[in-house]
């Protein structure tokens, strides 16, 4: 009796599996095409169209929207915005690299505790945290009062509503995103390779420059990717801490879409952001491939 059922079950089972697989794949493909691929194509198309008061977009195809980025009127705003995002990324890297290294050198138990501590702030709404940062930074705020109280300064600090405040807010929110990939590469870093370098007579600087730095480059690039792109886009940080003069690319895109109703220009700005992302991802793959090769050679 069992024997007569078996082939049947096997066929059923294969059909079951295939149906299940088909439905799943259909859903995920459909979702990504409708909500990721098509919208992005729409944005690229929009960036080559002309602004229209009623319908947002109109026909004459043009590259004017891209040419406006080299227009002196906008160049200043864009460069300022890019410099704030870049400085944020550099500060995160300079603070995060030794941080991730030091954490990876502690015992396993401490490592998981310290990494958990790093993530806890995420459970507080980021706007509320920025509001608290504002309370600390304000001219009559906590930092100034504390420093004046200790006699370190005489006049209140003027940080809030300057670019320093925007950079500070961005570093505060994005620092963990720099640390996470760096921590991952430091825990994968094989100590025998570092020791081998020392045994072969390299001094500390040479070991760092020729061995540790190249091996941790993929972590650096993904950290930069995770910090630089949000640092250009997080318009609410500039809104809350920066005042009207310190705009991020995100503020420019937002105002083009929601206030100025100049969709083509806003779309062109987002295409440029996406291109920045593409370049960084390509750099990441190039660097991890190179390491994959050297790693392989050393093992062989």
């Amino acid at each position, binding site marked *: 009796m069992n024997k007569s059922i078996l082939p049947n*079950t096997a066929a059923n*089972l294969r059909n079951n*599996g295939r149906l*299940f*697989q088909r439905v799943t*794949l259909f859903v*995920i493909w459909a*979702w*990504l095409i*409708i*909500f*990721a*691929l*098509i*919208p*992005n194509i*729409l*944005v690229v198309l929009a960036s080559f169209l002309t602004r229209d008061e009623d319908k947002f977009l109109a026909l004459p195809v043009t590259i004017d929207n891209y040419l406006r980025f080299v227009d002196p009127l906008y160049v200043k705003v864009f460069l300022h915005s890019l410099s704030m995002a870049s400085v944020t990324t550099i500060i995160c890297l300079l603070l995060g690299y*030794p941080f991730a290294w*030091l*954490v990876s050198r502690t015992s396993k138990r401490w490592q998981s505790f310290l990494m958990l*501590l790093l993530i806890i*702030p*995420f*459970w*507080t*709404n*980021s*706007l*509320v*945290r*920025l*509001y*608290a940062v504002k*309370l*600390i930074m*304000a001219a009559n705020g*906590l930092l100034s009062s504390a420093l004046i109280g200790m006699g370190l300064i005489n006049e209140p600090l003027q940080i809030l509503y300057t670019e320093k405040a925007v950079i500070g807010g961005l570093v*505060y929110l994005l620092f963990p995103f720099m640390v996470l990939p760096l921590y991952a590469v430091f825990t994968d870093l094989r100590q025998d390779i570092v020791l081998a370098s020392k045994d072969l007579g390299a001094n500390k600087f040479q070991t760092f420059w020729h061995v540790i730095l190249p091996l941790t480059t993929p972590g650096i690039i993904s950290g930069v*990717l995770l910090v630089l*792109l*949000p640092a*250009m*886009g*997080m*318009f*609410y940080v500039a*809104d*809350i801490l920066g005042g009207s003069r310190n705009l991020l690319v*995100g503020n420019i895109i*937002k105002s083009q*879409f*929601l206030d100025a109703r100049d*969709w083509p220009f806003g*779309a062109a700005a*987002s295409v440029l*952001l*996406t291109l920045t*992302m593409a370049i960084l*991802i390509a750099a990441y793959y190039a660097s991890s491939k190179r390491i994959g090769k050297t790693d392989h050679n050393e093992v062989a």
Partner: protein
Amino acid sequence: MTSTTISNAMKWFSRLYLTLIYLVLFAPILVMVVFSFNASKVGYTWAGFSLHWYYELFSNEAMIQAAINSVLLAVVAATVTTVIGSLTALSFQRYDFKGKSVLQSLLFVLMMSPEIVLAISLLALFLMIGIELGFVTLLLAHITFCLPFVVITVSARLASLDNSLLEAARDLGASEFTMIRTVLLPIILPAVLAGWVLAFTLSLDDVVVSTFNTGASFEILPLQIYSMVRVGVKPEVNAVGTILLGISLVGLLISQLLLLKKR
């Protein structure tokens, strides 16, 4: 001797550096909690303990409604995302199919795309199709940006899975579906739950995507908070933040206890 003094100095430097960074990271959270109990109306100075801002908060009906809406949105978005995301992770692990690497790169690009680009591209799509902005558009948008994170969380767990268990189930006559339900799901359940929690948190905290895809018919908490913190001093914001932090800490505690029980 010199080497021990150096490593000792190194140890102290390391401790000092880590402590300083954590102090800075936690200072705003401390300020938020302390100032949520502040009696002062100005916001910058301490004027004694008070629950005034909590009363203020709970009598603000728009805020309560926005909080309910946000939780509803986050629960639905996280649940749908977890179902689609877990099944996707499963297909990546179990099957070979045409276009697998294309699908994986699409998800990767989606995760890496700047939020603001995702936000405006979805806005363009919704306006083109002609869906009214509100709950539905927010839900579709939130599912989209949470999806890659759930796939990655579940995939990580599946990668360390012992395949012989699954093969044994199939050899013993379980259908693919039965095998997934009775063998695979219990094993990957912690990762699936972790994916749900991650999606829930991402949805509840999102400002960028929501700003573009929301409508007047459906107010949500982050945008309410946003309009409060943009203009001047609103101490009740600290109370909202403290309550949200409290809820997340309780949630974490419960999930840790559940995980311990499993073991």
